[in-house]
């Protein structure tokens, strides 16, 4: 994942991802062909349709918000040499950190303060709350890795399942109002993130219905913060050193266990911000399975974006486009399920992650001749 190659930089960060993406699309096209539809037409809808409407763009940005958070989650851990597959669980459990203050503190503040004051304060507490709860759910496997030597891949997988059981219990038994049939909390109205349409209404503008919220700016801010952390601070340097060479890190006076735990706390916290966005934004309540695989998409985003915040934002936009395009595709060609996008994601993970060396010798030969 972090092996630097002897290829020109633009090949490494530009050509290889593009090449792999093309192969992923060709193979997905074969799948479309097998099920008897026109792959060119499908591709045109998948990639083209969302780009030609304002609503399409809004929805792309909505999906990208979640994918930036989970992509950053995976990549921060990558930089410390850790593979955090637990983004899904961390984002899920963080719902507790987003919903609890939203329901309790939000209600209390709303009774003593005007809405314009109570809402932002509550939202800020919810933001911190979801970061901390997600972070703690990431810190635990970090602790197990650092202090007990339990492999982080295994423990984060297990914690995903434990998270699913825990949340099912919490939402069903604690958050669900008595007598309510649907397994979800009551509406969180005192920590309400407006979507673009609602914001437009305030200013008298008529905008299309979309789940996009201003949290996209928090996601971009988080991407900047991660860049700053990794390349402009001492801690970031230590994280990257531990990821590059633990022995060297120890020799340089860095404590890898400490760095591993801090990194996993940050990584989990970033995934946790997805809960802040999803629970208080589009959903306005704590409900089952709201993460919907975004944690795993984060792996694809991090691989595609080469673990660099700029790359992650771009990759998140791409996967946002795919998610929105997939929905439109399944509307227009009924026989193509929107799960085709999951196939493309899987192919991207396969080619960008597991087979990233496949073209290496070929490209190396080519560019060596040229120079």
């Amino acid at each position, binding site marked *: 994942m972090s092996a630097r190659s002897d290829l020109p930089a633009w090949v490494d960060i530009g050509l290889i991802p593009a090449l792999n993406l093309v192969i992923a699309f060709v193979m997905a096209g074969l799948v479309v062909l097998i099920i008897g539809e026109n792959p060119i037409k499908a591709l045109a809808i998948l990639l083209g349709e969302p780009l030609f409407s304002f609503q399409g763009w809004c929805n792309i940005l909505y999906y990208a918000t979640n994918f930036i958070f989970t992509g950053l989650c995976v990549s921060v851990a990558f930089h410390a040499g850790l593979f955090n*597959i637990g983004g899904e669980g961390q984002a899920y459990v963080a719902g507790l950190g987003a919903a609890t203050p939203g329901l309790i503190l939000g209600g209390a503040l709303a009774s003593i303060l005007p809405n314009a004051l109570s809402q932002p304060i509550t939202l800020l507490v919810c933001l911190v709350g979801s970061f901390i709860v997600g972070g703690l759910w990431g810190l635990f496997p970090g602790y197990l890795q650092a202090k007990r*030597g*339990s492999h982080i891949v295994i423990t984060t997988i*297990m914690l995903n399942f434990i998270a699913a059981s825990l949340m099912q219990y919490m939402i069903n038994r604690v958050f669900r109002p008595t007598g309510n049939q649907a397994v979800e909390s009551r509406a969180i109205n005192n920590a309400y993130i407006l979507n673009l349409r609602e914001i437009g209404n305030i200013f008298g503008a008529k905008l299309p219905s979309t789940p996009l919220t201003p949290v996209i700016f928090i996601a971009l801010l988080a991407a900047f913060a991660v860049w700053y952390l990794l390349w402009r601070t001492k801690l970031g340097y230590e994280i990257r050193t531990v990821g590059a060479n633990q022995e060297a890190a120890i020799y340089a006076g860095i404590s890898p266990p400490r760095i591993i735990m801090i990194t996993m706390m940050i990584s989990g916290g970033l995934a946790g911000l997805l809960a802040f966005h999803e629970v208080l934004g589009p959903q306005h309540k704590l409900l089952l399975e709201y993460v919907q695989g975004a944690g795993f998409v984060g792996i694809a985003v991090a691989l595609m974006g080469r673990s660099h915040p700029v790359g992650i934002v771009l990759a998140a936009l791409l996967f946002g486009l795919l998610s929105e395009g997939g929905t439109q595709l399944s509307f227009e060609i009924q026989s193509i*399920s929107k*799960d085709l996008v999951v*196939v493309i994601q899987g192919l991207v993970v396969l080619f960008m992650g597991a*087979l990233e060396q496949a073209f290496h010798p070929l490209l190396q030969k080519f560019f060596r001749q040229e120079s």
Partner: protein
Amino acid sequence: MEFALLPEILGSTVRMSVPLILACIAGLWSERSGVVDIGLEGKMLAGAFSAAAAASYFHSAWIGLLLAILVCIMFSLVHGYACITQRGNQVVSGVAINMLAAGLTVVIGNSWYKQGGRTPQLDDASRFLPINFPGRDALFQMDGVGPIARIFLDHSVLAFIAFALVPLSAWALAKTRFGLRLRAVGENPQAVDTAGISVARLRYQAVIIAGVLCGIAGAYLSTALQTSFVRDMSAGRGFLALTALIFANWRAWPALGTCLLFGFLQAIANFMQGFQLFGVEIPVQVFNALPYIMTIVLLAGFIGKSVPPKASGTPYSKDR
């Protein structure tokens, strides 16, 4: 606990354990050769879909099984190519396999059958039904012995295959030349290579065996346990099997015990909504989470220790 339900729960325990045992032994072969297999879940899912689709088309459970095995071997070869030939990251490859299987089964199933990823209901001829041996009904209706016999014998042929595979794998890995070499390749591939044996060849053989077993596990899900394929029907069983493998410390006999225990927990969770212990109600989610919690406690080294094969997860290259 109500004792009247006990035979039912134990019978269900066996049924729930079968896919776990198959996938767990699949993982055992793969990981003992040094190839980590996170993709058990995806392969099982692909196998379940292939088995149900082929069984409904050919009206034969056996053809379903065969196709499930072939499809799973194909997935295994993709994993093998990425991990062994290309020396890619084994965990990433496994994640990719899981995503591919989850997506492909729904995309193809939805386009063929237009039922949201579900395959058509299978009739009895295209399913693996409990074996109908002579004197079966008479035995099962006997007082006392009947219910106990049902627990052990009221199962399809795939279940018996699964249970037979445990001693077979234990023996093969411990006593045969192939098994010993395979384990050596998971511990110290350099030594095996020095002895003039191909590391890649052994590892490919191991992942193919894993594919075969995942195929059987998948076929069991959709043609024995259920009557059709439904989307995401493996429902985490591949990961549960992986958990069992770790809990059993990568050994065949303990894997059997662990899978039975995990199967028992699943059976209880299915049968007992509102299970009481000493007057305190235990939520069903506890049973779902317990295997993972137990394994994390084990991994953390608080009780015993779980040690993976030394070379697992690391690709082998000669020029080291």
